[in-house]
Protein backbone atom coordinates (compact mmCIF):
# COMPACT_ATOMS: atom_id res chain seq x y z
CA UNK A 1 0.00 0.00 0.00
CA UNK A 2 1.19 3.55 -0.57
CA UNK A 3 2.66 5.67 2.27
CA UNK A 4 3.75 2.61 4.22
CA UNK A 5 7.35 3.72 4.31
CA UNK A 6 6.41 7.23 5.37
CA UNK A 7 4.33 5.85 8.22
CA UNK A 8 7.26 3.74 9.28
CA UNK A 9 9.41 6.86 9.59
CA UNK A 10 6.85 8.48 11.82
CA UNK A 11 6.43 5.32 13.87
CA UNK A 12 10.16 5.08 14.39
CA UNK A 13 10.23 8.51 15.96
CA UNK A 14 7.12 7.81 17.96
CA UNK A 15 8.73 4.72 19.44
CA UNK A 16 11.88 6.52 20.51
CA UNK A 17 11.34 7.93 24.02
CA UNK A 18 11.01 11.69 24.43
CA UNK A 19 14.31 13.43 23.90
CA UNK A 20 16.19 10.54 22.35
CA UNK A 21 17.41 10.97 18.80
CA UNK A 22 17.54 7.75 16.75
CA UNK A 23 19.88 7.55 13.78
CA UNK A 24 18.84 9.46 10.70
CA UNK A 25 16.94 7.08 8.46
CA UNK A 26 18.37 8.17 5.14
CA UNK A 27 17.28 5.02 3.40
CA UNK A 28 13.71 5.39 4.50
CA UNK A 29 13.58 8.99 3.39
CA UNK A 30 15.01 8.10 0.00
CA UNK A 31 12.40 5.39 -0.50
CA UNK A 32 9.58 7.76 0.35
CA UNK A 33 10.88 10.32 -2.13
CA UNK A 34 11.16 7.67 -4.83
CA UNK A 35 7.62 6.55 -4.18
CA UNK A 36 6.46 10.13 -4.48
CA UNK A 37 8.29 10.49 -7.76
CA UNK A 38 6.72 7.33 -9.15
CA UNK A 39 3.24 8.35 -8.06
CA UNK A 40 3.67 11.77 -9.58
CA UNK A 41 4.80 10.38 -12.91
CA UNK A 42 1.90 7.98 -13.04
CA UNK A 43 -0.40 10.86 -12.28
CA UNK A 44 1.12 13.03 -14.98
CA UNK A 45 0.56 10.42 -17.64
CA UNK A 46 -2.98 9.75 -16.44
CA UNK A 47 -3.82 13.44 -16.41
CA UNK A 48 -2.64 13.75 -19.99
CA UNK A 49 -4.70 10.75 -20.99
CA UNK A 50 -7.74 12.04 -19.20
CA UNK A 51 -7.46 15.39 -20.91
CA UNK A 52 -6.67 14.22 -24.41
CA UNK A 53 -8.33 10.82 -24.39
CA UNK A 54 -11.37 12.07 -22.48
CA UNK A 55 -11.05 9.27 -19.97
CA UNK A 56 -12.77 10.71 -16.97
CA UNK A 57 -12.76 7.35 -15.18
CA UNK A 58 -9.11 7.98 -14.41
CA UNK A 59 -9.94 10.99 -12.26
CA UNK A 60 -10.61 9.10 -9.00
CA UNK A 61 -7.26 7.31 -9.40
CA UNK A 62 -5.57 10.67 -9.95
CA UNK A 63 -7.19 12.07 -6.85
CA UNK A 64 -6.18 9.03 -4.85
CA UNK A 65 -2.56 9.31 -5.91
CA UNK A 66 -2.60 13.00 -5.12
CA UNK A 67 -3.83 12.25 -1.60
CA UNK A 68 -1.05 9.71 -1.17
CA UNK A 69 1.45 12.29 -2.29
CA UNK A 70 0.15 14.79 0.23
CA UNK A 71 0.26 12.19 2.97
CA UNK A 72 3.80 11.25 2.10
CA UNK A 73 4.85 14.86 2.23
CA UNK A 74 3.12 15.43 5.54
CA UNK A 75 4.79 12.38 7.09
CA UNK A 76 8.26 13.29 5.87
CA UNK A 77 8.00 16.91 6.97
CA UNK A 78 6.68 15.76 10.37
CA UNK A 79 9.59 13.32 10.70
CA UNK A 80 12.19 15.94 9.81
CA UNK A 81 10.61 18.67 11.95
CA UNK A 82 10.32 16.44 14.99
CA UNK A 83 13.99 15.53 14.66
CA UNK A 84 14.84 19.23 14.53
CA UNK A 85 12.93 19.79 17.75
CA UNK A 86 14.83 16.99 19.42
CA UNK A 87 18.14 18.39 18.21
CA UNK A 88 17.16 21.80 19.55
CA UNK A 89 16.52 20.22 22.94
CA UNK A 90 20.05 18.79 22.79
CA UNK A 91 21.54 22.26 22.60
CA UNK A 92 19.78 23.21 25.81
CA UNK A 93 20.73 20.01 27.54
CA UNK A 94 24.31 19.39 26.46
CA UNK A 95 25.53 22.84 25.50
CA UNK A 96 27.42 23.84 22.41
CA UNK A 97 29.44 20.69 21.92
CA UNK A 98 27.49 17.52 21.42
CA UNK A 99 28.74 14.11 22.49
CA UNK A 100 30.04 12.03 19.60
CA UNK A 101 27.43 9.34 19.92
CA UNK A 102 24.71 11.86 19.19
CA UNK A 103 26.57 13.46 16.36
CA UNK A 104 26.63 10.17 14.46
CA UNK A 105 22.89 10.05 14.57
CA UNK A 106 22.56 13.37 12.80
CA UNK A 107 22.79 13.95 9.08
CA UNK A 108 25.07 16.61 7.64
CA UNK A 109 22.19 19.02 7.01
CA UNK A 110 20.97 18.53 10.55
CA UNK A 111 24.45 19.42 11.80
CA UNK A 112 24.31 22.56 9.71
CA UNK A 113 20.88 23.44 11.11
CA UNK A 114 22.25 22.88 14.59
CA UNK A 115 25.24 25.13 13.97
CA UNK A 116 23.03 27.89 12.62
CA UNK A 117 20.71 27.55 15.59
CA UNK A 118 23.65 27.73 17.98
CA UNK A 119 24.91 30.86 16.28
CA UNK A 120 21.52 32.55 16.35
CA UNK A 121 21.07 31.72 20.02
CA UNK A 122 24.54 33.00 20.86
CA UNK A 123 23.88 36.29 19.05
CA UNK A 124 20.65 36.69 20.95
CA UNK A 125 22.24 35.98 24.31
CA UNK A 126 25.07 38.38 23.66
CA UNK A 127 22.66 41.16 22.83
CA UNK A 128 20.85 40.89 26.13
CA UNK A 129 22.67 43.61 27.94
CA UNK A 130 25.95 44.53 29.50
CA UNK A 131 29.22 43.68 27.87
CA UNK A 132 28.81 39.97 27.51
CA UNK A 133 25.10 39.57 27.67
CA UNK A 134 23.43 36.91 29.75
CA UNK A 135 23.92 33.19 29.26
CA UNK A 136 20.40 31.93 29.71
CA UNK A 137 21.34 28.32 29.23
CA UNK A 138 22.77 28.46 32.74
CA UNK A 139 20.60 28.87 35.84
CA UNK A 140 18.15 26.21 34.78
CA UNK A 141 17.04 25.54 38.34
CA UNK A 142 16.16 27.94 41.13
CA UNK A 143 19.21 28.35 43.33
CA UNK A 144 19.03 26.59 46.62
CA UNK A 145 22.22 26.93 48.48
CA UNK A 146 21.87 24.90 51.58
CA UNK A 147 23.87 26.30 54.37
CA UNK A 148 26.06 29.21 55.24
CA UNK A 149 28.31 28.53 58.15
CA UNK A 150 29.55 31.17 60.47
CA UNK A 151 30.69 31.78 64.01
CA UNK A 152 29.34 34.33 66.40
CA UNK A 153 31.47 36.37 68.68
CA UNK A 154 30.43 36.95 72.24
CA UNK A 155 28.36 34.70 74.45
CA UNK A 156 27.53 32.30 71.65
CA UNK A 157 31.05 31.98 70.42
CA UNK A 158 31.33 28.27 70.96
CA UNK A 159 28.72 27.29 68.48
CA UNK A 160 28.80 27.00 64.75
CA UNK A 161 25.63 28.40 63.26
CA UNK A 162 24.20 27.29 60.01
CA UNK A 163 21.54 29.12 58.11
Amino acid at each position, binding site marked *: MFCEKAMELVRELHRAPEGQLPAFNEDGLRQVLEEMKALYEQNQSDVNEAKSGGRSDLIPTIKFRHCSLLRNRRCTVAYLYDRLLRIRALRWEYGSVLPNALRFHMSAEEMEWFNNYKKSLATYMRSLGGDEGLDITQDMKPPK*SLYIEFFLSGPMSKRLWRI
Partner: protein
Amino acid sequence: MHGRRVSESSAGAEKFGWSRAGLEQFALLSSRFQVPRLRPHELPVLTACCSGVPRCLAGRRVSIRFLVSEKMTEEPDFLGQDSDGGSEEVVLTPAELIERLEQAWMNEKFAPELLESKPEIVECVMEQLEHMEENLRRAKREDLKVSIHQMEMERIRYVLSSYLRCRLMKIEKFFPHVLEKEKTRRDGEPSSLSPEELAFAREFMANTETYLKNVALKHMPPNLQKVDLFRAVPKPDLDSYVFLRVRERQENILVEPDTDEQGDYVIDLEKGSQHLIRYKTIAPLVASGAVQLI
Protein backbone atom coordinates in the same frame (compact mmCIF):
# COMPACT_ATOMS: atom_id res chain seq x y z
CA MET B 1 5.92 46.86 56.54
CA HIS B 2 8.20 43.94 56.00
CA GLY B 3 5.38 41.65 57.03
CA ARG B 4 3.20 43.03 54.28
CA ARG B 5 5.88 42.64 51.67
CA VAL B 6 6.38 39.03 52.67
CA SER B 7 2.73 38.16 52.23
CA GLU B 8 2.66 39.65 48.75
CA SER B 9 5.60 37.73 47.47
CA SER B 10 5.02 34.50 49.35
CA ALA B 11 2.36 33.26 46.97
CA GLY B 12 4.93 32.90 44.23
CA ALA B 13 7.61 31.83 46.66
CA GLU B 14 5.57 29.03 48.15
CA LYS B 15 5.50 27.36 44.80
CA PHE B 16 9.16 26.58 45.26
CA GLY B 17 8.73 25.24 48.75
CA TRP B 18 9.99 28.33 50.55
CA SER B 19 8.48 28.39 53.98
CA ARG B 20 6.61 31.35 55.30
CA ALA B 21 8.62 31.23 58.47
CA GLY B 22 11.83 31.38 56.49
CA LEU B 23 10.56 34.36 54.54
CA GLU B 24 9.54 36.29 57.58
CA GLN B 25 12.73 35.66 59.35
CA PHE B 26 14.81 36.71 56.42
CA ALA B 27 12.85 39.91 56.15
CA LEU B 28 13.93 40.67 59.69
CA LEU B 29 17.46 39.69 58.88
CA SER B 30 17.74 41.88 55.84
CA SER B 31 16.67 44.92 57.78
CA ARG B 32 19.63 44.47 60.04
CA PHE B 33 22.25 43.89 57.39
CA GLN B 34 24.61 46.63 58.32
CA VAL B 35 25.27 45.17 61.71
CA PRO B 36 27.24 41.95 61.77
CA ARG B 37 26.17 41.18 65.34
CA LEU B 38 22.84 39.45 65.12
CA ARG B 39 20.78 38.47 68.04
CA PRO B 40 20.76 34.67 68.16
CA HIS B 41 17.02 34.19 68.18
CA GLU B 42 16.81 36.03 64.89
CA LEU B 43 18.97 33.56 63.05
CA PRO B 44 16.50 31.39 61.25
CA VAL B 45 16.86 27.99 59.75
CA LEU B 46 16.72 29.63 56.41
CA THR B 47 15.31 27.59 53.66
CA ALA B 48 15.26 30.50 51.30
CA CYS B 49 14.84 34.23 51.22
CA CYS B 50 12.04 36.41 50.04
CA SER B 51 12.67 38.49 47.06
CA GLY B 52 13.17 41.84 48.69
CA VAL B 53 16.22 43.25 47.02
CA PRO B 54 18.57 44.36 49.76
CA ARG B 55 18.10 48.04 49.85
CA CYS B 56 21.09 48.51 52.07
CA LEU B 57 23.44 47.18 49.42
CA ALA B 58 24.59 50.64 48.64
CA GLY B 59 23.16 52.09 51.79
CA ARG B 60 20.60 54.05 49.83
CA ARG B 61 17.75 53.53 47.46
CA VAL B 62 18.70 53.23 43.84
CA SER B 63 16.20 54.75 41.48
CA ILE B 64 15.47 53.28 38.11
CA ARG B 65 13.90 55.57 35.63
CA PHE B 66 12.28 54.51 32.47
CA LEU B 67 9.99 56.16 30.06
CA VAL B 68 6.47 54.92 30.01
CA SER B 69 5.09 56.05 26.73
CA GLU B 70 2.51 54.98 24.22
CA LYS B 71 5.08 53.75 21.78
CA MET B 72 7.14 51.69 24.22
CA THR B 73 10.05 51.78 21.87
CA GLU B 74 12.36 54.26 23.52
CA GLU B 75 15.45 53.32 25.47
CA PRO B 76 15.34 54.09 29.18
CA ASP B 77 16.16 57.74 29.50
CA PHE B 78 18.22 58.35 32.56
CA LEU B 79 18.40 62.08 32.16
CA GLY B 80 14.68 62.06 32.47
CA GLN B 81 12.75 64.69 30.68
CA ASP B 82 9.18 64.61 29.67
CA SER B 83 9.20 64.27 25.95
CA ASP B 84 6.45 65.90 24.02
CA GLY B 85 4.73 62.62 23.26
CA GLY B 86 2.92 62.73 26.58
CA SER B 87 5.25 60.17 28.11
CA GLU B 88 6.02 60.05 31.79
CA GLU B 89 8.87 58.84 33.84
CA VAL B 90 8.38 56.18 36.41
CA VAL B 91 10.90 56.03 39.17
CA LEU B 92 11.14 52.52 40.57
CA THR B 93 12.98 51.23 43.55
CA PRO B 94 14.90 48.02 42.98
CA ALA B 95 12.31 46.11 44.99
CA GLU B 96 9.54 47.33 42.74
CA LEU B 97 11.59 46.50 39.67
CA ILE B 98 12.09 42.95 40.87
CA GLU B 99 8.40 42.70 41.65
CA ARG B 100 7.58 43.74 38.10
CA LEU B 101 10.05 41.22 36.78
CA GLU B 102 8.40 38.47 38.79
CA GLN B 103 4.96 39.50 37.62
CA ALA B 104 6.09 39.49 34.00
CA TRP B 105 7.74 36.12 34.60
CA MET B 106 4.65 34.48 36.04
CA ASN B 107 2.42 35.93 33.37
CA GLU B 108 4.72 34.66 30.65
CA LYS B 109 4.93 31.20 32.22
CA PHE B 110 1.21 30.67 32.43
CA ALA B 111 -0.04 32.41 29.31
CA PRO B 112 -0.45 30.18 26.27
CA GLU B 113 0.73 32.84 23.81
CA LEU B 114 3.70 35.15 23.64
CA LEU B 115 3.00 38.29 25.65
CA GLU B 116 4.23 41.83 25.08
CA SER B 117 7.96 42.21 25.32
CA LYS B 118 9.27 44.23 28.26
CA PRO B 119 12.72 45.38 27.15
CA GLU B 120 12.89 48.11 29.75
CA ILE B 121 12.49 45.67 32.63
CA VAL B 122 15.12 43.34 31.20
CA GLU B 123 17.60 46.15 30.70
CA CYS B 124 17.05 47.64 34.14
CA VAL B 125 17.40 44.27 35.83
CA MET B 126 20.63 43.55 33.95
CA GLU B 127 21.98 46.87 35.11
CA GLN B 128 20.99 46.16 38.68
CA LEU B 129 22.76 42.83 38.51
CA GLU B 130 25.89 44.53 37.26
CA HIS B 131 25.79 47.08 40.06
CA MET B 132 25.35 44.36 42.60
CA GLU B 133 28.26 42.44 41.21
CA GLU B 134 30.45 45.49 41.31
CA ASN B 135 29.52 46.23 44.88
CA LEU B 136 30.21 42.68 45.86
CA ARG B 137 33.64 42.81 44.34
CA ARG B 138 34.46 45.94 46.27
CA ALA B 139 33.05 44.68 49.56
CA LYS B 140 35.37 43.04 52.03
CA ARG B 141 34.98 39.41 52.82
CA GLU B 142 32.26 39.62 55.41
CA ASP B 143 30.85 36.20 54.90
CA LEU B 144 27.24 36.64 55.80
CA LYS B 145 26.61 39.78 53.82
CA VAL B 146 28.47 38.60 50.77
CA SER B 147 26.87 35.16 50.71
CA ILE B 148 23.38 36.47 51.09
CA HIS B 149 23.86 39.06 48.42
CA GLN B 150 25.23 36.40 46.14
CA MET B 151 22.21 34.25 46.78
CA GLU B 152 19.97 37.16 45.98
CA MET B 153 21.83 37.83 42.76
CA GLU B 154 21.55 34.20 41.75
CA ARG B 155 17.84 34.29 42.38
CA ILE B 156 17.29 37.37 40.29
CA ARG B 157 19.42 35.91 37.54
CA TYR B 158 17.38 32.73 37.65
CA VAL B 159 14.09 34.60 37.36
CA LEU B 160 15.38 36.69 34.47
CA SER B 161 16.84 33.69 32.65
CA SER B 162 13.67 31.70 33.15
CA TYR B 163 11.59 34.57 31.79
CA LEU B 164 13.74 34.91 28.69
CA ARG B 165 13.87 31.16 28.15
CA CYS B 166 10.10 30.93 28.35
CA ARG B 167 9.78 33.62 25.71
CA LEU B 168 12.30 31.98 23.42
CA MET B 169 10.52 28.67 23.74
CA LYS B 170 7.23 30.24 22.72
CA ILE B 171 8.87 32.04 19.82
CA GLU B 172 10.34 28.79 18.53
CA LYS B 173 7.12 26.89 19.05
CA PHE B 174 4.88 29.36 17.23
CA PHE B 175 7.39 31.00 14.93
CA PRO B 176 5.22 31.47 11.80
CA HIS B 177 2.37 32.98 13.83
CA VAL B 178 4.61 35.22 15.85
CA LEU B 179 6.28 36.57 12.71
CA GLU B 180 2.97 37.04 10.94
CA LYS B 181 1.59 38.96 13.91
CA GLU B 182 4.64 41.20 13.87
CA LYS B 183 4.27 41.83 10.16
CA THR B 184 0.64 42.83 10.48
CA ARG B 185 1.15 44.93 13.57
CA ARG B 186 0.19 48.55 13.21
CA ASP B 187 2.48 51.35 14.30
CA GLY B 188 1.78 52.40 17.82
CA GLU B 189 0.73 48.96 18.98
CA PRO B 190 3.18 47.43 21.41
CA SER B 191 5.24 44.65 19.95
CA SER B 192 5.42 41.18 21.39
CA LEU B 193 9.00 40.84 20.15
CA SER B 194 12.05 42.85 21.05
CA PRO B 195 14.32 43.63 18.08
CA GLU B 196 16.75 40.90 19.12
CA GLU B 197 13.93 38.39 19.46
CA LEU B 198 12.63 39.40 16.06
CA ALA B 199 16.03 38.77 14.52
CA PHE B 200 16.21 35.42 16.29
CA ALA B 201 12.73 34.43 15.08
CA ARG B 202 13.56 35.37 11.50
CA GLU B 203 16.81 33.42 11.57
CA PHE B 204 15.02 30.43 13.04
CA MET B 205 12.41 30.52 10.31
CA ALA B 206 14.96 30.89 7.54
CA ASN B 207 17.09 28.11 9.00
CA THR B 208 14.19 25.68 9.26
CA GLU B 209 12.82 26.50 5.82
CA THR B 210 16.21 26.07 4.17
CA TYR B 211 16.73 22.78 5.94
CA LEU B 212 13.37 21.34 4.91
CA LYS B 213 13.81 22.52 1.37
CA ASN B 214 17.28 21.04 0.95
CA VAL B 215 16.59 17.73 2.59
CA ALA B 216 13.16 16.86 1.28
CA LEU B 217 11.14 19.45 -0.52
CA LYS B 218 13.39 20.03 -3.47
CA HIS B 219 13.31 16.32 -4.26
CA MET B 220 9.56 16.28 -4.35
CA PRO B 221 7.28 16.82 -7.33
CA PRO B 222 7.15 20.47 -8.39
CA ASN B 223 3.59 21.17 -7.33
CA LEU B 224 4.31 20.00 -3.78
CA GLN B 225 7.47 21.86 -3.05
CA LYS B 226 5.93 24.70 -1.08
CA VAL B 227 4.89 23.97 2.48
CA ASP B 228 2.84 26.66 4.15
CA LEU B 229 4.37 26.68 7.62
CA PHE B 230 1.71 29.07 8.85
CA ARG B 231 -0.91 26.38 8.35
CA ALA B 232 1.32 23.46 9.28
CA VAL B 233 2.59 24.71 12.64
CA PRO B 234 -0.19 24.71 15.26
CA LYS B 235 -1.42 28.00 16.68
CA PRO B 236 -1.21 28.83 20.38
CA ASP B 237 -4.31 27.53 22.16
CA LEU B 238 -6.03 30.66 23.39
CA ASP B 239 -8.93 28.64 24.75
CA SER B 240 -6.85 27.02 27.43
CA TYR B 241 -7.81 27.79 31.00
CA VAL B 242 -5.62 29.83 33.30
CA PHE B 243 -5.67 30.76 36.96
CA LEU B 244 -5.57 34.42 37.74
CA ARG B 245 -5.73 36.87 40.59
CA VAL B 246 -7.46 40.20 40.06
CA ARG B 247 -5.43 43.28 40.87
CA GLU B 248 -7.83 45.96 39.73
CA ARG B 249 -11.56 45.64 39.85
CA GLN B 250 -13.05 44.91 36.45
CA GLU B 251 -16.65 45.19 35.41
CA ASN B 252 -18.69 43.66 32.65
CA ILE B 253 -16.37 41.04 31.30
CA LEU B 254 -18.16 39.11 28.59
CA VAL B 255 -17.72 35.37 28.98
CA GLU B 256 -18.53 33.03 26.12
CA PRO B 257 -18.98 29.50 27.37
CA ASP B 258 -17.72 26.64 25.25
CA THR B 259 -20.96 24.68 25.10
CA ASP B 260 -23.74 25.98 22.91
CA GLU B 261 -26.47 25.48 25.46
CA GLN B 262 -25.32 28.30 27.70
CA GLY B 263 -25.55 31.80 26.42
CA ASP B 264 -23.00 34.55 26.86
CA TYR B 265 -22.99 36.12 30.25
CA VAL B 266 -21.31 39.02 31.92
CA ILE B 267 -19.28 38.91 35.13
CA ASP B 268 -17.55 41.41 37.36
CA LEU B 269 -14.10 40.70 38.73
CA GLU B 270 -13.56 41.83 42.31
CA LYS B 271 -10.16 43.00 43.43
CA GLY B 272 -8.16 40.25 45.11
CA SER B 273 -10.39 37.42 43.90
CA GLN B 274 -8.98 34.41 42.11
CA HIS B 275 -10.50 32.73 39.10
CA LEU B 276 -10.05 29.91 36.63
CA ILE B 277 -11.06 31.24 33.27
CA ARG B 278 -10.36 30.86 29.57
CA TYR B 279 -7.32 32.82 28.51
CA LYS B 280 -9.06 34.37 25.50
CA THR B 281 -11.57 36.18 27.71
CA ILE B 282 -9.00 37.97 29.82
CA ALA B 283 -6.11 38.36 27.39
CA PRO B 284 -6.37 42.17 27.21
CA LEU B 285 -6.48 42.38 31.00
CA VAL B 286 -3.22 40.50 31.30
CA ALA B 287 -1.61 42.89 28.86
CA SER B 288 -2.81 45.92 30.82
CA GLY B 289 -1.72 44.49 34.15
CA ALA B 290 -5.21 44.39 35.65
CA VAL B 291 -4.94 40.69 36.44
CA GLN B 292 -2.01 38.50 37.40
CA LEU B 293 -1.74 34.91 36.17
CA ILE B 294 -0.85 32.46 38.92
